[in-house]
């Protein structure tokens, strides 16, 4: 258990040299060795998503990877999004829509959404809901998290135009709130 490995982790664009044991999880290396404590741990078995980060641009569970496996990968954590006095549009959307209460799950949801929105720039509400169901939140009931991501996608679309449509095209309107009953 004492086999140590000298590795270099690239996190939020900076390289860090670390001496870690083979069994050290990536999330522990990020949180405790690099002191980037924004990424949280809720289960250590890959279900809750509190530890979600971006690895080479795609959401990944940092509790399910060993630090040694992450060498040479491009890692992004919540700290890369924006600082308290300079929040990103996604972070602002979470705050505006009350997409968080205790805030413990929030970094995981933000990184999940960041990865998701880079893949799907104009998702439907159902697609967002499905993507978001990868992570657990115990406080919000999820609705406002879906709202926040939908809001962010709509705002991005308004400012850049829908992806792949150079002419601007039409942005999907926000479907919230859905007050009509479903058709029979």
């Amino acid at each position, binding site marked *: *258990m004492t086999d140590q490995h000298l590795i270099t982790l690239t996190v939020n664009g900076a390289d860090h040299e670390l001496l870690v044991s083979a069994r050290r999880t990536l999330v522990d290396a990020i949180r405790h060795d690099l002191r980037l404590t924004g990424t949280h741990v809720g289960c250590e078995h890959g279900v*809750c998503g509190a530890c979600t980060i971006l690895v080479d641009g795609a959401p990944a569970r940092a509790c399910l990877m060993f630090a040694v496996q992450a060498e040479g990968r491009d890692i992004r954590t919540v700290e890369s999004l924006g600082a*308290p006095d300079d929040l990103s549009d996604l972070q602002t959307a979470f705050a505006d829509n009350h997409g968080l209460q*205790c*805030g413990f799950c929030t970094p995981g949801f933000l990184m999940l959404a960041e990865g998701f929105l880079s893949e799907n720039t104009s998702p439907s509400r159902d697609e967002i*809901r*499905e993507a978001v169901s990868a992570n657990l939140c*115990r406080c919000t009931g999820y609705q406002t998290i879906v709202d926040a991501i939908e809001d962010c996608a709509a705002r991005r679309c308004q400012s850049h135009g829908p992806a792949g449509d150079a002419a601007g095209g039409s942005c999907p309107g926000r479907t919230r709130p859905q007050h009509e009953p479903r058709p029979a």
Partner: protein
Amino acid sequence: MSSVTKSEHREPRFETDGTWVGASVRRREDPRLVSGRGQFVDDIALPGMAHAQFVRSTVAAGEVVDIDLTETRRTPGVLAAYTAADLDLGDITAILERPLSEFVPTDMPVLARDRVRFTGEPLAIVLAEDPYAAEDGVEAARVTYSASTAVVSDDQALAEGAPLVHDNAPKNTLLDVSMFATDGIEDVFASADCVVDVVARSARQNALPLETRGVVVSWEERDEQLLVRTCTQVPHQVRTVMARCLGRDERTVRVVVPDMGGGFGQKCVVGREEIAAGAAAIRLGRPVKWIEDRRDALSAAFLAREQRYEARAAFDSEGRILALDADIVCDMGAYSCFPFSAGIEPLMASAEMPGVYRVPAYRVRGRAITTNKAPSAPYRGVSRPQYVMVMERLFERAARELDLDPVEIRRRNVITEFPYTGVNMVTYDPGSYLEALNLCEELVRAEGWYEFQREAAAQGRTVGIGYCCFNERTGYGSDAFAKRKMMVVPGFDLSEIRMDTSGSVVVTSGTMNHGQSHETTLAQIVATQLGIDVAKVKVQQGDTDRITYGWGTFASRSVTIGGSAVSLAADRLGVKLRHIGAHLLDTEIDNVELHRGTVRHRDDHERAVPFTDIADAAYLRANRLPKDTEPGLTETASFDTPGDGTFANATHAVVVELHPGTGKVEILRYLCVEDCGIAIHPQVVEGQCRGGIAQGIAGALFESVTYDAQGEPSCASFIDYKVPTASEIPDVEIHHLETPCAFTESGAKGVGEGGTIGAPAAVLNAVNDALRPTGIELDQTPITPETVQRALETLDTLEPQT
């Protein structure tokens, strides 16, 4: 009086009239939380810090023959390992002031000594250089047990000759009270037009805050203090128990709470692991960190909600309830929690079961039993999800018997005159029980769900509509808790407010934020009171050295009681500001008012002194103060809800579809009409409702902590304990009614628990409505797909005949 106001998110009106209350302002805590700069317990690292893990019992019941930690101590990285014998700690004991015939106090040792009572019970604490080594150390421990038969169900616990979980608790009963028994109630049942009964069960649940429990303890030499940084809803109570168990003066323990990732009641009782970590830190001479892992949180943390009801109700031919009779058994697991004791669930249910209905005759027996399962703590809503579910089932069943509309039978029975003193001797403050029910039904009708249900049925689809009406006591003051006869009586709260020379304000509150936005809502109250920008107000909580005393956050008490204390303190500071301001303006106090950071003359607005000038006089040039005035701008106030407290209320409606083949219950629509009095921050109110409803749906359809016959927990991971995700929880539309509360300073009632209370009954009623053609009625939660599937198969066999 209740006035209907649709939800609206007002912008702050400070620019026009200085009012922050009622506006959904940006939350003060959000910027740090969305940027990963929050600080939770596990984010804290101290030099020389050791990491703790616990050796836990692998059997549910038995004697501990031997704990051999030789290999543990030899494990690389392990620093020390201590058993109960090494630490010599006092026990945690929760007491009710009731005769032994009603309540049996039991001790919960910090680390089990000679006997274990549930799988997962801590036996020894292992300290290591890192958490990995601590786990290695735990694995190397050898414990020898002489296992005995585990008691794992209420039937087994109450059976004649059952093994005893605690030797001093006969019949495995920790509490047995019959709080109410109306004379002649049997005659009422005998002569009633309609008598219905229900046997209902609800499964054991885990409150499951996403952040597990945890603590970092260090000895601070300069302060002669043990600094305990932990995620708890009740910091002062943790300090008391920690000091008592360690045999120290209370001043030598300081509890500080950082950001907290939820609690929902699981963190409003004192845990054993925190105390053991404190003792270990002293013994080892190094700071100690313990972070509960999810496996321990699922199998050994405090649980809740496992209850059985045998209830019946008598009605007249018009559907008016005449009598209610209930026998309630709550399985509280292996130990009584501190401070609430094992009485928490049965006492709540016994005292409050009649709820929103005019019940003229009432008899109830409530029991807390002990079993070889992880102990129980309060969980959001405490018993109300269960007894409300039972009440609502009784009404639904009576409606069927009497061929009445399920909403109409409720309408005929809800309390409409206030204040109303019930058969349970509780006086309800004004609410909008009938208005909420009517509005909720109107919304369901207006959206066309009844037609939808009919048309769906014609196509062979199975759709149901269910309602739930309830209230929740929110401002439990000392008087209300005293009725429980607890040896420690929660209730009041204290607040201190200080203004500094820059005119900014720090206000303390004995409540404890863990997601409810106190940092924002309490600041809104103060900012409104003083007429300053909300950004000028900092709310401070969760530090027993800085906060005189407090009862923490539970039972939706924070805005009602904490908010009122904060408001009164601000009021006093306002008086002092006016007093000094009037002196500086050379006029009388009655001639001046607070306005946007100044004290100004009421008639001559040009004559005004900014708060900074007043603070300058109060601190830096005290010679300018009026002669009778002490320097400084610090005021304190306390608040306690008088009488029986405050009651928020709501009606929930839900439309479900049952899917043949899978037995899935799909929620098509969820509506909530709630009344929490004045909403300080409407967005936060809605957030509380939605989060609560999600947990209520979790209880209704998904979550169940189960054990095998030996008492081995069968859900120690998220694979087995099904927590609903965004795919299972629907959007919830919320409408607000506003019945301002006469007791609280802001007119607000609490709102933390309502969602959890309403959802199980509403969902169960909707499922039963859908199953109506089968004649099957379900009275248990969670409603499993298997049960639904079986019921739907009955429908198949019925269909050819109809």
